[in-house]
């Protein structure tokens, strides 16, 4: 295997070198050029091959695993393209000559939300976060960190500077905070799900530990959001302890009888690594989108479209559309039976907010 080294690129960001086809070059530009050259192309030759389905771009940035230094011979080239008007998020990967290009298009209005949402606002916000907002925040973090490790291929006035904003230290802090909160959220889910869905609980506990490791590598400069690359990032940082934890955690239970011991062991590890104990957070359960309810024969029937439902003898504290959570409380509190039944039937969304906010 190639030796992996941690280097600092021109923008001062830590990056992985030696991992993939372009890893021999130390900078994102070098990696991109090496990747394209191995396919008989240059950046100049690539640009005219790119389609413009949503109008002339204001920014075309190369991004993703190749530029982050973890890509390999089978990697595609991710592009972030900002255009003036509305776009579709339909997957539009296609070959530009011999390069598989996977573009993600954003309107100016969407891209314009990234800095206010990520840099200028706290995460999580005071009010409970629904699935839509959680998903938007994750997407914004993914693309912001791709921009941080990315390279502008074409940029109208001001857009290269906008891209540079994502190379500033605040983004590392925001990524660390995301993983810190996710670790608590997943651990809480593991605890709540354990009695009735132990195999699922084990997977949530696994994710809670990996989230702490993600926080750890992010704090050391490898903050691009891409969970599949965690082991590569730990390796690049020479983090032997982290790699050992990764391996131990990934050896998840395959039988229910193994789950209790696994969760205990992993939770000790998570806390020993500096994982948050949850004391500073308020947890909330709200309904997933598309969930509705009706009263029938003294029962409350809660259902998700024609997909799944649960019949409750005790009316939950909130019904869909009430505008407040089914339950909110400290992470060490017990869930009421109706809330637990709704969680068990996968009709709820779990979020965290800061205590006292």
């Amino acid at each position, binding site marked *: 295997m190639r030796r992996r080294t941690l280097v600092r690129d021109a923008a001062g960001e830590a990056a992985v070198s030696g991992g993939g086809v372009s890893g021999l070059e130390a900078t994102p530009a070098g990696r991109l050029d090496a990747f394209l050259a191995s396919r008989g192309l240059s950046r100049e030759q690539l640009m005219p091959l790119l389609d*413009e389905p949503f*109008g002339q771009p204001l920014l075309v940035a190369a991004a993703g695993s190749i530029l982050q230094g973890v890509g*390999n011979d089978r990697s595609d080239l991710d592009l972030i393209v900002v255009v003036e008007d509305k776009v579709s998020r*339909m997957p539009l990967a296609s070959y530009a000559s011999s390069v598989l290009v996977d573009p993600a298009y954003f309107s100016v209005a969407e891209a314009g939300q990234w800095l206010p949402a990520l840099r200028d606002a706290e995460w999580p916000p005071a009010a409970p976060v629904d699935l839509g907002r959680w998903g938007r925040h994750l997407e914004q973090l993914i693309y912001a960190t791709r921009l941080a490790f990315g390279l502008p291929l074409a940029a109208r006035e001001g857009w290269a500077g906008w891209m540079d904003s994502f190379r500033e230290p605040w983004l590392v802090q925001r990524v660390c905070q995301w993983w810190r909160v996710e670790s608590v959220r*997943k651990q809480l889910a593991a605890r709540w799900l354990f009695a009735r869905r132990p195999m699922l609980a084990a997977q949530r506990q696994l994710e809670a530990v990996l989230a702490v490791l993600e926080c750890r590598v992010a704090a050391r400069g490898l903050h691009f959001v891409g969970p599949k690359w965690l082991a*590569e990032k730990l390796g690049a940082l020479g983090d032997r302890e982290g790699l050992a934890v990764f391996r131990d955690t*990934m050896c*998840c239970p395959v039988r229910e009888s193994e789950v209790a011991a696994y969760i205990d062991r992993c939770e000790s590890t998570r806390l020993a690594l500096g994982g948050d104990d949850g004391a500073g957070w308020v947890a909330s359960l709200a309904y997933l989108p598309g969930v509705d309810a009706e009263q029938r024969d003294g029962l409350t029937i809660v259902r998700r479209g*024609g997909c799944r439902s649960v019949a409750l003898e005790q009316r939950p504290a909130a019904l869909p559309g009430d505008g407040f959570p089914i339950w909110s409380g400290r992470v060490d509190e017990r869930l009421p039976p109706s809330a637990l039944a709704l969680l068990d039937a996968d009709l709820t*969304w779990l979020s965290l907010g800061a205590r006292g906010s």
Partner: protein
Amino acid sequence: MSEVPDTRRSAALGGYCVMRFMRRIQGGVEDIEGMVAQGQYGAAASMARSVALLCLSIRSLAHGAPIDLDEESVSFDVFACVPADESAAALTLAREALDIDRDSAAAWLQRFIAFVAETERLLGYDGPLPLLRSPEGAFAMIRVARRWSPVLAQLGLPPLLPERWAVPAAADGAKRA
């Protein structure tokens, strides 16, 4: 928990699960192949876990679990209704990626691809689905959407394609094909 009638289950497998397979599992297998070829075994193990869990989600529905489309929810249970031995085999196979090396990687990959192909057969199509990221893939996805979207709507099930996939009207200055 509600029972899912066979019609809904078939429609969910043919529609939602095919989309899940084409969008996430196919790409995951391609990722694993690239990682194994590059000696990125830790990354391959991460991706193998994700793909194995997604395959179990399809098997879960085929075995009688309720339809669940909320993959990001903490309660999205890929193990629901899957026999314990089947779940254990899938997790064990994914875990084995942690121990592969240059000598054993190809054999492991072959077994993993066979597991994915076995899952694909549950989707009810005559042969393997085209790769989404191939010239035929986009057309196959459109065919799936055209075939199943009206059926899902008739059954009162959620739309097959995300709202954000809708293609906006061309603006002035857009290059036209």
